């Protein structure tokens, strides 16, 4: 903590010295504040940022094949990709497969390569079984005799693409793109394209849910905000009530209500409103209903908080100046509620983007959102790279949305109460 000599030098500007002293104490203040948030920061780092970063990294890092088959990937790195690879690559592959088979690691390399080309798994295992057999000749002849696929440039290109240490395979796949044999990026086959469609659907469902929440939540919040405090508290309690019930229970309750021989259909039938049970479950309608139900409080609460802060005198003033009730509401009241509208919409929309359980339980096959596919790859097919790539898409969509909101409305204008 040596003081800068200039500060004490005779003849120095006293104002500058004061500024420096001020800056110094400001820095100390900042350090103390930083020390106070440090534990929380470290906690977040250890439990949130690092694991999520690691998980997302799985979409990019691709070390499996490179580690398990080091010789052939090194050989293929030198290959120009135009003709079949040179002889040393064939010899290296034989050695790698033999070593991997002994170490029992061939399966994980085979799984990774099979993601790219169906049939690669059995190609590697059949090769592993037969390289030590009765076949003789050069490595190229041996492999060609085991399977003619080894005489195909594409087979080797697949290994090279998977050599790592980084890959764009998963990220491209998440955008319905792929690399062809000559390493150029092309669109995936139409019958293999899923994810753009899914991302669009995710945004669409979230948008509709947000809009419906706003249309339903705005009058409710307005009504509660104008009640005397005692009654408002009771009404708010009712809005909050669903929060204390598990999401799963609330969703399954909708199944009971909406199913073919469920409560609603029985009611309609007995009232003679319909002749046949109406189909209300395992479709988009059910997804909208259940998601709006779950997310509505997140719209009502910020709206209520903002509306509570708007003095009724404004409306009275507008009326006394001759505005009709609707004009007064539209031109004086509503603009003041916009920060609440922004906050509510952003909260509902961003939560809706990540919805998984509700569409899975009440939706049909074409109502599943992107989280469903993340779970599908993470837990069903155990393809972590693909799960991570889709997670990146979801995160990017959320951040982009946040940025757009910030640009258009300004995040500092958002008020949660």
């Amino acid at each position, binding site marked *: 903590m040596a003081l800068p000599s200039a500060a004490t030098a005779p003849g120095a500007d006293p104002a500058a010295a004061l500024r420096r002293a001020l800056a110094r104490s400001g820095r100390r203040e900042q350090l103390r504040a930083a020390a106070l948030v440090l534990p929380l920061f470290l906690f977040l780092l250890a439990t949130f940022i690092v694991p999520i970063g690691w998980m997302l990294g799985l979409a990019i890092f691709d070390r499996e094949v490179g580690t398990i088959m080091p010789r052939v990937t090194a050989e293929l790195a030198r290959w120009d990709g135009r003709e079949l690879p040179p002889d040393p690559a064939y010899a290296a592959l034989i050695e790698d497969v033999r070593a991997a088979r002994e170490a*029992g690691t061939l399966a994980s390399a085979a799984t990774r390569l099979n993601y790219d080309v169906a049939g690669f798994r059995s190609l590697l295992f059949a090769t592993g079984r037969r390289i030590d057999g009765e076949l003789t000749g050069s490595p190229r002849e041996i492999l060609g005799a085991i399977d003619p696929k080894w005489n195909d440039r594409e087979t080797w290109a697949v290994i090279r693409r998977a050599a790592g240490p980084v890959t764009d395979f998963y990220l491209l796949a998440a955008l319905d793109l792929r690399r062809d044999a000559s390493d150029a990026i092309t669109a995936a086959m139409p*019958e293999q394209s*899923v994810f753009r469609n899914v991302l669009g659907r995710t945004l669409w469902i979230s948008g509709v849910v947000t809009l419906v929440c706003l249309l339903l939540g705005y009058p409710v919040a307005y009504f509660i905000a104008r009640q005397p405090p005692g009654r408002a508290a009771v009404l708010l309690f009712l809005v909050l009530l669903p929060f204390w019930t598990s999401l799963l229970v609330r969703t399954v309750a909708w199944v009971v209500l909406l199913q073919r021989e469920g409560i609603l259909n029985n009611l309609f039938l007995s009232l003679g409103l319909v002749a046949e049970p109406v189909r209300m479950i395992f479709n988009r309608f059910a997804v909208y209903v259940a998601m709006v139900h779950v997310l509505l409080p997140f719209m009502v609460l910020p709206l209520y908080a903002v509306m509570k802060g708007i003095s009724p005198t404004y409306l009275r003033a507008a009326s006394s100046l001759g505005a009709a009730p609707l004009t007064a509401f539209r031109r004086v009241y509503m603009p003041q509620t916009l920060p609440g509208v922004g906050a509510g919409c952003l909260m509902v929309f961003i939560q809706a983007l990540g919805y998984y359980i509700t569409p899975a339980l009440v939706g049909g096959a074409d109502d599943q959102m992107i989280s469903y596919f993340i779970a599908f790859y993470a837990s069903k097919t155990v393809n972590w790279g693909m799960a991570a790539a889709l997670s990146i898409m979801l995160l990017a969509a959320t951040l982009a949305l946040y940025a757009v909101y910030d640009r258009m409305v300004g995040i500092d204008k958002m008020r949660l109460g």
Partner: protein
Amino acid sequence: MKTQSFKLVALAAASIVLATGAAARDLAVVSWGGAYQDAQREVYFKPFMATGVKMVEESWDGGVGTLRTKIKGGNNNWDVVQVESDELLIGCEEGLYEKLDWAKLGGKDKYLADAVNDCGVGAIVYSFVLAYDGDKIKGDTPKNWADFFNLQKWPGKRALRKGPKTTLEIALLADGVAPKDVYKTLGTDAGVERAFKKLDQIKGSVVWWEKGAQPPQLLASGEVVMTDAYNGRIATANDKDKKNFKIAWTNNLYTIDSWVIMKGTPNKADAEKYLVFVNDPQNQKNLPSKITYGVTAKAATALIDPKVLPELATAPQNIAAALYINDKFWLENLDKLNQRFNAWVAK
């Protein structure tokens, strides 16, 4: 001092582990738990222990990774494990299991052909079947997968298992492909195309299920008029919930769970004794009365309670036109066909 005592404890613990590892342990048999293992206990485990071999039972939830860890970790404590067909295939490829000595097991001819594998012997046989509610569809009932796709005659929703496995086979069977040609057809692009085209016919009427418990619920709630389902689940619903669900067995898709012996087990001799015991038709015949699974020794079929037999995948009339689910095909093609299926569903 503290570290000192910690080291001592660690040393003691390590020596205990080493000691128990080295000592001969009882034969460990691992199965799927639940009602199934309860049945196995009565039919296999207890009578087998009465022959004088000491054994302990455990249960697991499947996953070839579990077995891989045991073998690679070097302290495998399981000897005989019941595995599903894909675990049999992958584990055998990776060398996790002992190769079986079929002469000791009475020769391959003693068993259903699909129950015989280098590394495993079939334990139970069960099927994906067409099921419907007999209280709701009367008179003219669906007989086969083509009827499953007939929306004119039997209007209403159908349920299918979500995913390409079993669904594409069913589509081809419904389109008139013979069971023996299904995988040959599905191995070609045109065949895959044909399957999806067939599925297009009922796409708007399909409810997709993911858990085996769902099909009976969907039938019971009237949500669907027909579904594919595990035959055991349908039998249980009839038995426990007094439902009147019916099964059309024509072209059912069956699969087999197998017993394997873990690689390098010190109890190999006892493990083989166990396999001989559970493959004795006289012992196998008792299992179906406790739980609705078919068994794999050919001679057992004639010995099974005739009241139970028609509910089993192995009944002669049920297995006659059945299709054995080809795990090798799916191991190769599941990634691509999953993607294709997801894209088709989302269209």
